[in-house]
């Protein structure tokens, strides 16, 4: 743009003839005109967040229409749950989101506890809070690597995924599993923290902060990243409620909504936590908000590690799970995942099996309607970065 002289720029008139004509808000795309090309990004493509596809109509390298296609990942979780006893479900719910399984575990377990009228012990609540924040951190680290990688900066991805692995080591110690923890179970948690865990976790918090310092220098203070992310995919404050956008995506557009503060659960009321918002609404602001939330999460982990009681029960008394019948009722439990409000609606009909389990993840709108709107007028090369900046997790779309 700078190479075009002021004079020329004034007279510059883009050739819009290649763009589709609009009729009643819908683009008329005539592929026979040879002005447009259909291009599929995904389902097998490194620039796609998971198993989904975006069907693009491009003109040159500019996207004129985007359509999200899902269905590559459908495993029918919600239906599977209806045929399993309440206790058996916790092994499935975590699979709804691979990078951040614990939010599902928490929501499902809490929903069952609410329906059964069980209050879990204090220590179990602390451990769950720690688990949730650790899982947010691991998910954010993965996102950060993805965001940098989608713009061609592979080094950050290697650092953050490496660091995430150290956190997975801690998960392994704590829960017995690295990816699917299957740790929060209706009634409490399955194990107490192992010996020396708190020391190791505190040490890792320091190490992660050091890494974040390097990432700030190389990723956020980076001319290329800024030029590519700034003004990309702007979510205006008006769009937030209209599209049902939640989480960092909404907070980056000035929406003050965080489940941890608006509807506090677990031990969050006892922790020092402040809402992080910004007004930019573009991909770079979203990255900045997430970056600050990583710091916030590290801070919360430190607070929890200091406050977690040394002794205490980890499980409330529950009946024999083989014959566990939950009284009739329905409930909705939500929690803040890295992508925003994540909820479980559970209906029980008094039998051993849940009547209906419905899961609502933030990606449902963010990867379909929001992405389809924001992708228009961006270039193909920016689409991957845009998708990651919305932090999509396709399994949430097709439970």
């Amino acid at each position, binding site marked *: 743009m700078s190479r075009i002289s002021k004079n020329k720029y004034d007279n510059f008139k883009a050739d819009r003839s290649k763009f589709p004509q609009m009729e009643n808000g819908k683009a008329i795309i005539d592929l026979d005109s040879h002005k447009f090309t259909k291009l599929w990004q995904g389902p097998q493509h490194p620039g796609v967040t998971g198993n989904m596809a975006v069907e693009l109509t491009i003109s040159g390298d500019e996207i004129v229409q985007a359509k999200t296609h899902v269905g590559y990942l459908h495993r029918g979780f919600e239906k599977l749950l209806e045929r399993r006893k309440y206790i058996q479900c916790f092994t499935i719910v975590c699979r709804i989101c691979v990078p951040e399984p614990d939010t599902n575990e928490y929501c499902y377990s809490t929903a069952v506890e609410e329906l059964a009228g069980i209050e879990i012990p204090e220590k179990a609540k602390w451990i769950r809070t720690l688990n949730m924040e650790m899982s947010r951190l691991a998910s954010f680290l993965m996102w950060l690597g993805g965001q940098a990688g989608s713009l061609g900066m592979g*080094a950050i991805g290697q650092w953050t995924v490496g660091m995430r692995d150290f956190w997975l080591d801690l998960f392994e110690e704590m829960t017995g599993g690295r990816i*699917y923890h299957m740790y929060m179970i209706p009634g409490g948690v399955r194990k107490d923290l192992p010996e020396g865990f708190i020391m190791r976790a505190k040490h890792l918090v320091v190490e992660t902060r050091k890494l974040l310092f390097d990432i700030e*220098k190389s990723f956020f203070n980076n001319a290329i990243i800024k030029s590519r992310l700034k003004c990309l995919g702007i979510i205006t404050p008006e769009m937030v409620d209209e599209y049902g956008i939640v989480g960092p995506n909404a907070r980056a557009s000035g929406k003050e909504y965080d489940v941890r503060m608006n509807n506090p659960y677990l031990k969050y009321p006892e922790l020092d936590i402040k809402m992080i918002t910004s007004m930019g609404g573009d991909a770079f602001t979203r990255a900045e908000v997430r970056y600050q939330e990583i710091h916030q999460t590290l801070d919360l982990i430190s607070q929890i590690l200091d406050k977690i009681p040394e002794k205490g029960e980890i499980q409330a008394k529950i009946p*024999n799970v*083989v014959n566990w019948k939950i009284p009739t009722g329905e409930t909705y439990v939500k929690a803040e995942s890295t992508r925003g409000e994540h909820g479980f609606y559970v209906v029980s009909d008094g039998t051993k099996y849940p009547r209906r389990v419905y899961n609502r993840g933030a990606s449902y709108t963010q990867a379909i309607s929001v992405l389809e709107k924001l992708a228009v007028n961006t270039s193909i090369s920016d689409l991957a970065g845009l998708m990651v900046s919305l932090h999509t997790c396709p399994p949430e779309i097709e439970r």
Partner: protein
Amino acid sequence: MSLKDIISPFNVWKRAAQKPWTIKDPLNDRPGADNYRGFHKNDFDKCVGCGTCEDICQNAAIDLVPVQTVETDMSDSGLRPKIDYGRCCWCALCVDVCPTGSLTMSNDYTWVTDDPEEYRFIPGADKMKWDDCEKGYKRAENFQLIDFDRIKMNELGVEERSSSFIEMVKGYSKEQAIEEAERCLECGICVARCPAHMDIPEYIKAIREDDIELAVQILYKTNPFSASCGRICTHHCEDVCSLAHNGEPIAIRWLKRYILDQVSPEEISKILKDIIQTNNKKIAIIGAGPGGLSAAYYLRLLGYEIEIFESNEKGGGMLRYGIPEYRLPYDQLDKDIDYIVSLGVKINYNTKISEEAKFNEIYNSHDALFISPGLWNSIPVNITGEELPNVISGIDLLNKVTNKEEIDLGSKVAVIGGGNSAMDAARTAKRLGADVEIYYRRRIEDMPADVEEIEEAQDENVKFFPQTTPLEIKKDGSGLKFIWGNNKMIYEEGKRPKPVLIKGETFETNLDTFIIAIGQNADLSFLPTEIRDNIETKWGKVVVNELGQTSVEKVFSGGDASNSKADAVSAIADGHKAAVGIDRYLNK
């Protein structure tokens, strides 16, 4: 955009000089966490093949299969879990619900083999490289998904119960019973152990679903004495309950009682709707105890005409005359008997078969006979002074109490023996106002009586003198002088410890009454010589085949007189078995 933004990204090179995080040999340098959910291990010594792991596995990755090295017995199904690693998701729910704690996981990460079939393996049977691995996932002690604690039974206080014959166990309420029934894992090991093979998991399920009618129907399929058995059964089923390995077994006996407590005698016939189609064949039964009556019940259902000969004035046998009222109230026993009688079973009370002619008449006028005379002869201790007037047998005492005869035991009573009869005699004597002492030749833990009977006797202030041998009884004024010696135990591997008298250590105690309760014998003198000579006996018991038939074709036998367990439920099982045997014999 500033110059800083252009220079700053070069920071990435800083990390290029750092030591890499990658572990070169992860399998050796980085073992799994102590708690890692790796591959399965199964401790065959602990595993009983209950199948709870198979039930709970949401991937259906576990199958229970027979294993050559494991033998099926009363407390072990003989099956072991086979795990399909093509289906397993390593959630370790099977480990958490394992009631015996036999199933655990190692912390091993990898297993490579070129034969996919190997990924279906039986942990414990197939030797695996991680078998000796100490670390790995185990159920935490303070975490349990199955309920190991039994719902407490309401009982009369010690004071109240040791002075009266009111039933001491009050029974479960509906809520308690359902809660207790919810603990059941439905493994069914109890079914094999129960002599009558009652369908325990099914009736517990019926309680859980609050379907009492179905529960009653299930009970009567195998046991027409559920009101009684629900109170006094020796409940061996509870000994093998898979929950008993790490906690308290399901209160199977109390749950059975709960079912019958919910229905009145009239309701039983409405629920069962037993229809009899008479087939005009006649069966005689000698002895209206639990064995004789259950044979009568099942034979009657098959259409036979039943005539029972009973020497006492009421039916029930040992249940009435050998078990005190505070354990089994007579109205509950009557409830069981009345239903059987209501089906058209004829009982001749006060009919003792003492002459050969009478027996022969019965023998000839009926198509088959079932004899269940019970054990009524007390075994003597064989010491001097046993013939003295204040020396009585436990069974005599219980008999007299049932018949409401006048009994004067005096103030101090000694009971000799360690079985349930000895406990019953001692606790009955206690209720009659005496101070009671129990003498037994082995240790308390060797006593054949139920643990709860022993504990309850101790609670009621009955004093125990284990490792003692009676030596002599003398007359001392109006009372007795009892001389006894101390025993030491000699241990031999694989055998019960043997009591041996310590020479020179003798003691004396003054008593008013001495009760002998060391066991009873069958009295088969009612049988004509010809039949008695032909009937095979072993250790004083009538030998029968698997369907209750004796060596005299037409005569079947059951109950205490022929089985060595000498408890009510075995007698009931004998009766049911003989009913099948008689039916086959008469229709072959």
